[in-house]
């Protein structure tokens, strides 16, 4: 086995030193009744070449060609240089940088990531990453509940990604906490007016752009949170939108969490993504997970370390508010690289292009019999009501041509029968969009 360097002589010599008669003898402290009789029932080992054939077969059985959906996972171009740099094994095969003297590369890279994220979102502090947007948002709810101890409830917009709301429910329910859903207006924004009649809540959370792609009015969200003396929490699934939109920090958000997959990370069937978790300075010590900070060595030379670790589980144990240790560090590094490649100009131009493509897709589909239920500004996703017969045609396109023509919304929002969520990014050409319109025209 090519990963195991031991020769028979090595094994014999080492067993002599340890005083064991055989490899089996090393396990004599394990009671006989605990030991597996016989071998594991696993397929036979493959050579590297057989593995390639097997995996090529599986990867070939993935049939999507043109994808017109986002909903939390977006296809964007990734620079070749990014994957090349990310695969440097000094980054990829290192552990969490607990020994800063020989981890300065990871530490500076993550510090730069944190810095660029705070700039993009207008927030004071960004953590070194979380698993994904949904889990980061669930953590944000826990922070809010910890800050407002007498309250057991959080108010979350129905236009927060449905899967994220499901995660929040999973995280909160065992402790007796409750998620109250804020319904939406006929224009596809969150109906904050219902908060007036609502009891005390620890957080008011919205997604912007929301699950329908619509840009929320964050000024109103701030006012609603103030009226409830609750934390204002903003999430997002399309990080690229903040290359163009006013950031949540400028509206006074207390916590902002998001999905960073659009920043140079492949979709990879939904994971690993990149959880972004940021807060105001006041909430710095409440944020879960690792933080990189500046430091000096004993000679006064500048460097970086993991810091404020007294918040974390390995020190606080049962008193820690989160149990996170491994995060999505390498993906944070990827996002840092992506933002460095794109820069101020690139990120903005790309965001503008995404919006333009989405508007073109919307108008083109409207020309093919679709109608828009909302007339509110969006970024690169939007909802359309389909003409009769589309459901069957969509299924046909999927199976016959691998085209994903919108995500049906009815399973998440039962009143939105025949409504579909569409997305366009820079990877779709005008031709792709016009072809889709031809395919779906009734």
């Amino acid at each position, binding site marked *: 086995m090519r990963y195991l360097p031991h020769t028979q002589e090595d094994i014999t010599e080492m067993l002599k030193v340890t005083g064991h008669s055989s490899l089996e003898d090393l396990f004599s402290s394990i009671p006989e009744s605990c030991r597996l009789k016989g071998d594991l029932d696993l397929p036979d080992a493959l050579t590297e070449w057989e593995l390639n054939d097997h995996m090529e077969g*599986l990867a070939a059985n993935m049939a999507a060609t043109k994808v017109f959906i986002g909903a939390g996972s977006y296809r964007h171009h990734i620079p070749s240089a990014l994957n090349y740099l990310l695969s440097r094994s000094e980054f990829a095969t290192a552990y969490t940088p607990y020994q800063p003297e020989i981890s300065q590369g990871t530490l500076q890279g993550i510090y730069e990531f944190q*810095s660029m994220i705070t700039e993009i979102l207008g927030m004071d502090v960004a953590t070194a990453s979380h698993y994904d947007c949904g889990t980061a948002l669930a953590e944000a709810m826990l922070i809010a509940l910890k800050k407002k101890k007498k309250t057991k409830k959080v108010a979350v917009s129905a236009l927060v990604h449905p899967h994220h709301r499901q995660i929040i429910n999973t995280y909160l329910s065992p402790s007796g906490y409750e998620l109250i859903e804020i319904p939406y207006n006929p224009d596809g924004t969150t109906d904050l007016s219902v908060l007036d009649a609502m009891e005390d809540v620890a957080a008011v959370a919205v997604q912007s752009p929301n699950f329908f792609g619509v840009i929320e009015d964050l000024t109103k969200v701030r006012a609603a949170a103030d009226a409830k003396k609750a934390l204002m929490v903003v999430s997002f699934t399309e990080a690229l939108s903040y290359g163009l939109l006013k950031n949540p920090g400028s509206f006074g958000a207390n916590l902002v969490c998001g999905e960073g997959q659009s920043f140079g990370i492949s979709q990879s*069937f939904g994971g690993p993504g990149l959880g972004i978790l940021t807060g105001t300075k006041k909430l710095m010590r409440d944020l879960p997970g690792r933080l990189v900070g500046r430091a000096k060595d004993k000679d006064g030379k500048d460097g970086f370390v993991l810091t404020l670790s007294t918040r974390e589980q390995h020190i606080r144990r049962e008193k820690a508010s989160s149990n996170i240790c491994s995060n999505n560090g390498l993906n944070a590094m990827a996002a840092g690289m992506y933002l460095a490649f794109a820069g101020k100009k690139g990120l903005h131009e790309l965001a503008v292009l995404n919006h333009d493509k989405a508007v073109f897709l919307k108008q083109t589909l409207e020309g093919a019999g679709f109608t828009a239920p909302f007339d509110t500004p969006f970024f690169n996703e939007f909802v359309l009501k389909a003409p009769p017969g589309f459901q069957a045609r969509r299924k046909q396109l999927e199976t016959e041509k691998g085209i*994903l023509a919108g995500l049906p919304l009815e399973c998440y929002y039962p009143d939105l029968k025949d409504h579909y969520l569409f997305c366009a990014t820079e990877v779709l050409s005008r031709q792709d969009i016009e072809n889709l319109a031809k395919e779906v025209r009734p």
Partner: protein
Amino acid sequence: MTTPTATTGLIFNEPLLWEKSRDGRCGLSIPTSDVPSSPLDATLTTGGPNLPQLSEVDVTRHYTRLSQWNFGVDSGMYPLGSCTMKYNPKTNEVQAARPGFTTAHPMAAEQLTQGAMELMYNLEQDLGEITGMDAVTLQPAAGAHGELTGMLVIHAFHAKNGKQRSKIIIPDTAHGTNPASASLCGYESINIKSGENGILTPEAVAAVMDEDTAGIMITNPNTLGLFEENIQEIADIVHAKGGLVYGDGANMNAIMGIVQPGKIGIDVIHLNLHKTFSTPHGGGGPGSGPIGVVSKLAPFLPSPRISKTDKGYSWQFDCPDTIGRMLTFHGHFGILVRAYAYIRTMGKGLKLASQLAVLNANYIKAELRDTLALAYDRPCMHECVFSDKNQQPYHVTTLDMAKRLMDYGFHPPTVYFPLVVQGAIMIEPTETESKETIDEFIQAFKDIAKEAEETPELLQTAPNLPKVKRMDEVAAARKPCLCG
């Protein structure tokens, strides 16, 4: 004294990204627009965040230089106890990078994602066999996330049975995540001490186990690297009172093909694919933390579940007793591909990997026992725990020795953990280190112990070779500067 493998080389100072920025540079190829411009209302937008502006060359050189300041498994031996820093096979990276996988949309229709679903189904079966568990979920994102998932399953099981419980037993040799995970489920941790030989006794468990206790969280092999040999008796005690046994599988690398935890009384176990199954740690993640459960707990696993029918693979959303969703999509699929590639490459050879991991640890224990103080003199599994007791007379600490190891070209072991051993030095060599490398490591530790007696200042000022000297972590925490 032998010649250390570490030496100095030409590395570069490299400023922060924004210190290299020049207005007008861009390192990304922006597609030409082929659609009309449709500007958003100006009240909604800005000119974009003030990010650094760099060319592709600038960025490439920046990260290449940064990488040279890092130590990874590919640089040298990385014997971090409890972290299983084994070699990360390169073919795993090739498999995960196949375009069919990387471009897959998680919400695409089942018939367009059969390849990924088949891989996930196969991996669930393989992990079920390795752990002896009846059902596996791949959704959890990391070990701690798997642990939380497992505790939520236990919580849901008790709720379904009509009476929630309020406590959970956690031995002092547990990972720090265990009590934190239990708290998230509203359970109070009941901490119990392991016996004098580092092994948990059935009596200690029986003394606290009652019908208001949800179960026990136990790491086996434990964090001292010892096999909890009373595990079956302990499980019987917990089960007799209606409790469940949670197994922390972080140390599974010691017992693949030797013990199936599901067959010795453990009801739930999480695995760290980035430890046992060779996926890279990535400087802190992403990892993957699948959990396996016995059949009576399967209905509580996160949804959706994957199933195989004669028509292919499909998602099962109809899971009335599920704890719900733990992650936005189907788990860290890119990591799952790597772990699957590893299992397919190793096959039944996984057992040999565990045997050699245990051999390497026992060999280090035997060779260093006269140099460092052994915490518990018992047969160890895949890691061995020493302390700095022998060096204390020279005012040399575990931290000093750890830092000095860097000058010899080794990543330090895990230090000051487990907490039950004062000044702990926890060494886990893994099976992928050769006898020669391990001999060099042992010699380095012997040389360092000698230095501790003769020239302790060499250790107290270590490390000397890395780009920066010992970092002042205390000052950094006092005045945190977290962005620039």
